[in-house]
């Protein structure tokens, strides 16, 4: 995973709450077996509308999405994170994220920055008043900056550390292989396995 310290890019106001992962990428795009190239599925239903924010200049080239509350609800599909990143987004700002989406984002290096709704509203106004305004998201001091606006954001310390270092979770866990082995040795013998049962 690529390390993330700070990012500056065009902010995109998405004035919608409850943006579920079916909206971020519909199920029809989930049939692929590859890990890249999902940008065409991003907000597919809404992109058919010429007034949708990502169809407008200069938002098309945006990389910081500013969305309403409860972003990423619903399906666990990590494709939602891949689609956002494949399109070019590096950060999503919202006052509340669904748990699985936030976890998926953290694994892939997409920053899910949780800001107060009040700051989200101020960002929306700013980005709509001056389309193309750049937003800087700094992970070192957990701050969003745009023009004169300075807003703090929340992200859990462990995810922040991993993102700053660009560390892979699996490699970190495998350092504890001995402990996993010890735990396995103590598991109850009656716990089920998926080994096929003898046919009678």
């Amino acid at each position, binding site marked *: 995973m690529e390390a993330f310290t700070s990012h500056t890019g065009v902010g995109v106001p998405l*004035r919608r709450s409850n943006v579920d992962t079916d*909206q971020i990428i519909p199920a029809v795009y*989930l049939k*692929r077996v590859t890990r890249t190239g999902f940008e065409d599925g991003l907000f597919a239903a809404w992109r058919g509308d010429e007034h949708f924010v990502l169809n407008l200049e200069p938002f098309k080239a945006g990389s910081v999405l500013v969305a309403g509350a409860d972003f990423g609800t619903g399906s666990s599909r990590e494709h939602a994170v891949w689609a956002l990143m494949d399109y070019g987004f590096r950060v999503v700002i919202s006052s509340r*994220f669904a*748990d*699985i989406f936030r976890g998926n984002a953290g694994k892939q290096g997409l920053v899910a920055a949780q800001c107060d709704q009040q700051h989200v509203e101020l960002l929306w106004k700013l980005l709509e008043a001056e389309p193309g305004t750049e937003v800087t998201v700094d992970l070192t001091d957990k701050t969003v900056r745009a023009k004169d606006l300075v807003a703090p954001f929340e992200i859990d310390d*462990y995810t922040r550390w991993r993102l700053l270092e660009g560390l892979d979770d699996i490699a970190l*866990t495998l350092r504890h292989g001995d402990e996993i082995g010890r735990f396995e040795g103590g598991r109850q013998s009656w716990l*089920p396995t998926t080994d096929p049962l003898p046919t009678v």
Partner: protein
Amino acid sequence: MSGTLAEKVWEAHVVRHGTGAEPDLLYIDLHLLHEVTSPQAFDGLRLAGRKVRRTDLTIATEDHNVPTVDIDKPIADPISRTQVETLRRNCAEFGVRLHPMGDAEQGIVHVVGPQLGLTQPGMTVVCGDSHTSTHGAFGALAFGIGTSEVEHVLATQTLPLRPFKTMAINVDGSLKPGVTAKDIILAVIAKIGTGGGQGYVLEYRGSAIEALSMEARMTVCNMSIEAGARAGMIAPDQTTFDYIEGRPHAPSGADWDAAVAYWKTLRTDDDAKFDAEVHIDADELTPFVTWGTNPGQGLPLGAAVPDPASIPDENERVAAEKALTYMGLEPGTPLRDIQVDTVFLGSCTNGRIEDLRAAADVLRGKHVASGVRMLVVPGSMRVRAQAEEEGLDKVFLDAGAEWRQAGCSMCLGMNPDQLKPGERSASTSNRNFEGRQGKGGRTHLVSPLVAAATAVRGTLSAPADLEN
């Protein structure tokens, strides 16, 4: 130290406690796989030269993409076919047990696990699928994960996780006839909202929950994610033990006694504290349906489409306006007057044998309204076989419904079972999101009883409406 059910299961699976900001590392007892969220995870393993650590705790099934007709023929959609074939290749290469299309044990992953007896109290269960919360009905800590986490579990059989908060959902009293587990959970979601459970594990408790069958408990836990919670749990009791006993992977003999003795300890202690509590009066509940585009936008069937102008919160008002535009509904319209084109009975929420029996009881001797198409999709091949043994297939067919093979089907329309733009469904599934059942499709979430009655009348209805 006293604790809640969720905390006890968590604590029993900690491989190592994190220090400072570091999360705990939890052991995973059962990892379920399907074709949609696993290909990139297997690819990751291959790239890193890693193996599946515990193939004996891993099982796969084909469910999201599979057609529900002509399953003896190759899948017509080449992209779906590739995804299913990729799962088969991956399972063969890594040594994972797979129940493919056509197999007697194939079905929706969350129907298959419990039915095989693989889901047991006190376990940790994960799957790259948000409805993994279903398995919490057994007192397991079960939750959906993303594909990176799928790869992580395949490689290590563990997950780094940070502690959650706990919320008690107390449902006391008794359900009136015609009111079901689906109505309980839709009422819970309407009450706490689609984000109300974020960061929490929900524990459903109270006399109305204790009175539910295992299958009904699965319906409740299944939709915990629709309230924003990753997991929902119900303490195991005699109902749970009776359901598990004798299933293929259930313990037996002395192992059974040891397991039950442990399972009986899996209860929230009397002096344990929840971080939040919600109360629902079961006696007050009536059949519940959704009118909008998220599962929190629901009302009792006897109500009317709400007027957004009466919603004080600006964001919620705007969301309601957008939902009504998408749904093509006018404020003030009685929900009972809403006409549907399609009725879908199935999914990991309501595709089990009891759901099919309940719907068949309503349909017996009646006919689906003209102009309405009803799809009955069993949750698994075993459910299908059981239904046929009981003659339910004949009830559905005689009523004019379609009797299909097992899979996720129209719940999310990854296979050919989809709504056309503008079509409206009454669906026993779990999500009424825009386009979920097909681009431009409009979904009303309902119980199996309401689905069956709606099929007969052609408008959203409860079985009681058929008696008038």
